[in-house]
Structures are given as structure tokens and as C-alpha cells.
């Protein structure tokens, strides 16, 4: 379980390893907000290595998206597996986020 943060062509890429759940959601939030306060405005959170996300994890993504938008930025998501797609569809959060099939696709034209 962890988060890997890197910079790619002016975009902050956060890769979530393991789960994004109530026990570690604040860690992700803190990392992204630090980058936002540091001036970053374009974010991709990639879930290629993520097992599952609970409602707290979904809530953090909603919260971060709002904060990033308030600063004139954008948060995109990528690489949701079938289970994660199901969770986003059930909660209708797939209508709230721009979701790409891969991190490369998310980074294209950002």
C-alpha cells in the first residue's frame, strides 16, 4: 500500500498501489494538496496497481477534484480495472471525472 508521485511533462502523476480506503485516504489527500499548494495544477491519479477503493477513497477523489478545480486545475483518473469501473458507475462518479484507459492516454494533450 502506497503512493508514488512523479512529474511528467508538467503533469503530476500519482500512482496508487494496493487499496485506497479509509485507512490511507488522508495520506493521498495530503500528498496531492502539497503539490497543489506548490503550484501544480494538472493531476493524473493512476489505478493500474490498485485493488479496490472504498467510499472514503471515492470521497477523497471527489474532494481533491473540487479543490483542484477551485485553483483552476484539473484531476484526471486512469487505469480503472473492471471492479473499480463498477464502483464508479454505481456511484455515478464516472460522470464527474474524466477517466482514461491508461496513464499515457490521460497524459495526452493535458
Amino acid at each position: 500500500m502506497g503512493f508514488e508521485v512523479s512529474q511528467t511533462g508538467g503533469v503530476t502523476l500519482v500512482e496508487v498501489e494496493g487499496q485506497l480506503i479509509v485507512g490511507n485516504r488522508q495520506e493521498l489527500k495530503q500528498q496531492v494538496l502539497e503539490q497543489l499548494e506548490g503550484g501544480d495544477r494538472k493531476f493524473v491519479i493512476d489505478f493500474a496497481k490498485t485493488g479496490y477503493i472504498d467510499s472514503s477513497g471515492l470521497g477523497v477523489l471527489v474532494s481533491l477534484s473540487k479543490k483542484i478545480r477551485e485553483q483552476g486545475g484539473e484531476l484526471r483518473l486512469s487505469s480503472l480495472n473492471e471492479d473499480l469501473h463498477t464502483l464508479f458507475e454505481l456511484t455515478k462518479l464516472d460522470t464527474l471525472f474524466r477517466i482514461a484507459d491508461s496513464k499515457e492516454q490521460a497524459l495526452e494533450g493535458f
Partner: protein
Amino acid sequence: MDGDLVLELPTDIRSIERAVEFVMTRCRTCSEQARRLDLNFRVGLTEALSNAMLYGNSRDPSKRVLVEVALQAGRLEARVTDQGIGFDPSSVPDPTSPENLTKPCGRGLFLMRQLLDEVSFNDQGNQVTLVLRLESGGILEGGVQA
């Protein structure tokens, strides 16, 4: 319910992932049911534990959460009980309605209801029972931990 598997957890959200994993490793089923177990039951149980600790026990570390899991006649049942005063589940708004979609909270109970075959509460509202029907049956490896 006399649970085949009983866990008593401290109110510590860091314990949720390990507790869910512990239960999951003891629930085995055929491959056709694996996704329902891995996604539906795992997320449902995680949500129930989160609600019990965050809202039921109000993060009070002196309070405990009881988890009882049993498999009977193709029904995998998990009962989660906290030591809070309880709540009215009918008072929780629909998180998918337009006015709630951008709110960061309120999706736990919704996901439980979407992913499990049955979700019920006791009268006090401090105990939730989740049921996942496993058509082809399954195996629950028993054990008791305190």
C-alpha cells in the same frame, strides 16, 4: 448469530484493511463466485467496518467493533456491531442524486445496498447484517479471535 468466525476489533481505522483481509482469506468459493466475493463482499464489509468505527463508535478508541461471519446454505453473512447509540438508516440521502454527487461523504451505505443481496439493521441502528448469496456454495474456514 453464532458466527463461524468472530473478530473483536478496536476502533482504529488502520485495522480495517487487515481485518477484511483476514476474513477474505478464510472465505473460499468457486471461481464463478470469486468476483462477487472479492468485490461485493470485500467492499461491503469494509464499508460496514468504516461506518462502525467512524460514525457508530465516533472514533472512540475505548469502544470495540464485533464482527461475526457465517456461511450457511449458500449464504455468506457478516454481522457488524458497534458500541454507539445507533442511527436511522432511512435518514441517509441518495449520494447519486445531483445535489449530493459532489459531496465527499455518504456513499458507504449506498455501496453496501448495491453490492450485497441483503442489508438489514437492528432496531437500535448499531448493528448491520450483510448477506451475499453464493449460488454454488463456498467454504468458510472457521476460527475465533479476540
